[in-house]
């Protein structure tokens, strides 16, 4: 068994070494554009109504008696209609500085089935649906494909899980902080499935997964320290080891992303998970809000002057039900919010056509009605940042998308 263990260990080491940036050649062709695009996938289905609270809508408070909104919940007023959940309060200064904003009542074309897997697949594939497309790659990868000959380091998929959004024919670099201990996003999602009907296990597992991730990050850091990996990336690992907060793993991802984006990398993508708030939403939001704020603030701090030419899009597979459920949470819904940040975008605003939350306004009588395809905002961001033509965006990157009128998104 020891020999087997040794072999297993050696393989794991070999894999992580192959994916490690410090042994790849430093010479690479620069991309023909200079702006930076970071796509953060928020897995689990973020309750946009709780993060960017439309407290000015007269129906909101009644739908959510147990989830205090607006002034009653300590939210930060944004524009007299929307308020920012206090858990995300660290982002208020960024909002005031015009570097953080949101779009409300948006969604992917996914409707009515409310499965995490399918929802995420559609979000990352950038397709109208899962059937009949035949495309097996992600929209960020198709973006890379528009410029042949790019070095893989132009785009980074970061973190332990497969990022479909960057998968495909164009080669992208990958980096993950954990070598051996890992629970894949798929396994995490499936754990939610197997525990969905068992409240005792469901609630404990939600928190447990975060702990498991933390154990994984710490083990990876310990391994990096033990094997004496030097250089800049070794330093990244050591910083992780020094951090004690549960969000250490996700901020480590942000730190690594920034270290790459300061150089030749133009596109980075990773996940911030744990948004499936079926119960105890207030508590989970508190932690996830802090985690996401940490990620965005870490990116800003570590990017330095590069922040000014950076756009960060935070996207989720679907929103959640307008009404609170019976366990202090919300269930899988439809319309939600897109969050964005970065010096290249016009923050300090909440965009979107508000459909209202009245009884006749809801999608299928239960969800926030999406008034625009979330892909349109991503497309307009890419058009503004990279200069892609509308025709390419609507045909190759997001098949079937009508980009519509330009939102005031890119500076």
């Amino acid at each position, binding site marked *: 068994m020891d020999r087997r263990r040794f072999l297993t260990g050696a393989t794991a080491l070999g894999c992580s070494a192959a994916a490690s940036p410090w042994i790849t050649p430093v010479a690479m062709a620069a991309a023909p554009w200079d702006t930076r695009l970071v796509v953060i996938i928020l897995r689990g289905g973020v309750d946009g109504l709780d993060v960017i609270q439309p407290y000015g809508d007269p129906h909101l408070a009644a739908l959510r008696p147990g989830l205090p909104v607006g002034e009653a919940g300590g939210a930060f007023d944004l524009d007299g209609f929307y308020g920012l959940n206090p858990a995300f309060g660290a982002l208020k200064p960024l909002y005031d500085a015009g570097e953080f904003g949101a779009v409300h009542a948006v969604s992917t074309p996914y409707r009515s089935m409310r499965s995490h897997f399918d929802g995420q697949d559609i979000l990352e594939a950038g397709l109208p649906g899962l059937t009949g497309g035949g495309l097996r790659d992600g929209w960020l990868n198709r973006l890379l494909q528009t410029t042949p000959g790019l070095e893989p380091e132009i785009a980074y998929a970061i973190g332990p899980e497969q990022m479909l959004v960057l998968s495909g024919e164009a080669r992208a670099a990958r980096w993950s902080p954990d070598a051996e201990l890992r629970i894949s996003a798929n396994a995490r999602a499936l754990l939610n499935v197997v*525990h969905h009907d068992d409240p005792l296990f469901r609630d404990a597992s939600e928190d447990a997964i975060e702990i498991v991730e933390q154990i994984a990050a710490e083990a990876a850091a310990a391994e990096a320290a033990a094997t004496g990996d030097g250089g800049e990336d070794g330093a990244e690992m050591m910083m992780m080891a020094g951090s004690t907060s549960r969000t250490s793993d996700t901020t480590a991802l942000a730190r690594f992303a920034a270290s790459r984006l300061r150089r030749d990398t133009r596109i980075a993508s990773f996940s911030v998970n744990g948004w499936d708030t079926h119960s105890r939403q207030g508590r989970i939001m508190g932690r996830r809000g802090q985690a996401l704020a940490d990620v965005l603030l870490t990116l800003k701090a570590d990017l330095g002057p590069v922040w000014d030419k950076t756009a960060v899009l935070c996207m989720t597979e679907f929103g959640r039900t307008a009404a609170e459920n019976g366990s202090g949470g919300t269930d899988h819904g439809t319309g939600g919010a897109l969050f964005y940040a970065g010096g290249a975008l016009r923050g300090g605003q909440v965009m979107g056509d508000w459909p209202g939350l009245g009884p006749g306004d809801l999608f299928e009588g239960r969800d926030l009605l999406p008034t625009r395809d979330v892909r349109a905002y991503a497309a307009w961001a890419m058009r503004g940042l990279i200069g892609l033509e509308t025709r390419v965006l609507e045909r190759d990157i997001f098949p079937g998308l009508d980009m519509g009128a330009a939102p005031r998104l890119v500076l």
Partner: protein
Amino acid sequence: MTFDPILAAVRFGNGLSPDVTAPASVADMLTLLAGPDLAAAAYPIGLFDDIRPSQWDFRLVSSDIQAAETDADREAAMQRRADMRAASNELWARNTTMQLSRDVTTRDGMRERLVRFWADHFTAPPTNGAWRYHVYPMIEQRIRPHIAGRFSDMLRAAVMNPLLIQYLSQTQSIGPQSEVGQRTGRGLNENMAREVLELHTLGTGGGYSQTDVREFAELLTGLTYSARRGLSYQTNKAEPGAEVVLGRSYGGGEASLDQVLQALDDLALHPDTARHLARKLAVHFIGPEVDADLVTGMAARYLDSGGALMALYEAMLDHPAAWGADLRRVKRPVDFVAASLRALAVAPAELNDWPYRTVARRIFRPLSAMGQTLHQPLGPDGWSEDDAAWITPQGMAGRITWAMQMPERMLDRLPDPRDFVFHALGPTPPEAVVFAAHAAETVPDGIGLVLASSAFQRR
């Protein structure tokens, strides 16, 4: 609400195995329990009295180290102590894998579960963590032989268990009027008496008073243990005179152990004890809330039989509540690991080949992460029967981590998760788990998801 082989294996045993058939009927279960202990014969664990190195061996080598006159002597003695520690660790590991081998291979799964139940009922964690390797041999000698016998015999054996006597400070309890008490001015320690009444026999709320506790403590004086002399009854520490416990008088003439044993026998047959044991068994095996008529029925059959444990088990298994389809309890970490190894059919030859370090990495440390440091519960009341105390974020993280990682390390070849879901959960697993087993990205993930599922974690 009738007998079901899957439930029999999952609720009352160590779960399903691809290699071992589940019990065929209640009668089959009872016959196995009443029959010879085949698992113990196949995977032997030595007895407490035979443990080497013993506690006394460690005392001797410590005094050798202190008494050493030269550096060379000291180093030699320290080396011997290090060797003894390594040997005791190996023994601890081996006994652990022997027990797991029994769990993996037995048809008589309820026996293993009952051994853990009663060992927990008479929880006796070693006062020194380094003596954890004494616990399996203690169980082997003082619990296991009695699980299908009379409760009074188990009670006698358990109360005269050196680890319990040390743990509950019985070694410090001296009759104030005894020879030693008079000479030294030392007195009673009521700890053991209180716990025997409250935890082991009558139960919290049982009909006893503080006076009963005190009288019973006086009766117990004389019973003691030391590493050098072993278990003994020392009349010069025993309180003279008769003691009245629950209205019955014991002793009066010369103090003797027989009076203690008589009191234990009477306690074993007290109606409060019958109810306490019945309720505890039913809660442990069936669910957090149990029917009053189940408990009443079990207690009555136990008393009618003159204190036979088999009567308790039979009454429980005969009751429809035993066969409710809802899985209302959660496997404790030790049971979860045992059931996982059984479902994976890990070979005993493999298990018993693991050195201490491997057992520590795969079993001891993960169990601690799940909240059950093996044989080290926090109090004399043993491990919690409250499932919410186990399924905490931290505990669940330990279970998930183990489920996802360890099977791959323990087996050269993992089963196909799409088959394994049926090995582990029987012919009709929940759809969500079947889906997860099919949808997992990797084989280890698929196995891990089945093991981490509440369907597998419950029983």
